[in-house]
């Protein structure tokens, strides 16, 4: 059951991710990205990280992607990459390097997995509790949490100053 769900969500994530980078139309790419994000949320869920899965759907697929779609529509971008790719070598090299990268990382991970035991058995469903997560967030990671508030503040001010028509 879990394995089947993993295969479904995993395949969906990979295929939609490849669609994100291969569609010409940005709108289609954005939709594909939403599919990827939701598939990953599904993966989180089957691992038992239900709270993160919910956040993934609400914040990522919900809020952030809406921002993307909004901008794409605002700029009315249908196809912006006119004309043939002039630097074919860039594309070829890009794909080759990407494959090399995944090969290297894969070999490293494969070789390093021996250090990890098999997954601990146990009821995954009860693993994530919002209480534990939030108590961690407000104790051990309080500082990081506070820094995110700064981060958002900077982003808001920055986005406003750059995108506002008249200052």
């Amino acid at each position, binding site marked *: 059951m879990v394995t089947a769900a993993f295969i479904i969500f995993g395949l969906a994530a*990979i295929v939609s991710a490849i669609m994100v980078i291969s569609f010409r139309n940005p709108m289609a790419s954005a939709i594909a990205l939403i599919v990827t*994000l939701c598939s990953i949320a599904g993966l989180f869920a089957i691992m038992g990280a239900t709270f*993160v899965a919910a956040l993934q759907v609400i914040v990522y697929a919900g809020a952030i992607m809406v921002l993307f779609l909004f901008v794409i529509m605002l700029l009315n971008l249908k196809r912006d990459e006119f004309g043939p790719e002039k630097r074919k070598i860039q594309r070829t090299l890009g794909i080759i390097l990407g494959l090399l990268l995944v090969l290297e990382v894969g070999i490293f991970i494969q070789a390093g997995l021996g250090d990890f035991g098999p997954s601990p058995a146990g009821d995954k469903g009860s693993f994530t509790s919002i209480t534990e997560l939030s108590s961690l967030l407000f104790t051990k990671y309080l500082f*990081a949490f506070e820094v995110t508030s700064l981060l958002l503040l900077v982003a808001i001010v920055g986005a406003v100053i750059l995108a506002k028509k008249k200052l």
Partner: protein
Amino acid sequence: MPVPLGYYLGLAAIIFTVGVIGVLVRRNAIIILMSIELMLNGANLTLVAFSVHLQELSGQVFVFLVMTVAAAEAAVGLAIIVMIFRNRESVNVDNLNIMKW
């Protein structure tokens, strides 16, 4: 029967790399930005997989924090793209090479 850790990590590496390839091959700034989101998701998947495997919650807290980062980057990145679109009517990064060499 739980799925082994390695599968999750491999899947995460693939998604990460798809994002990397996207940055390298696409010319549309918005799609490049989306590819970067893919990379972040690959990292997030790794974090959660480890967190669950190690039965240690920090990884999931990180995912929460990384989402904030993604949101902030998206906001600023899209603002930059809007600004450039206003000046040049294009978001094709291959049109941006006034400065070189």
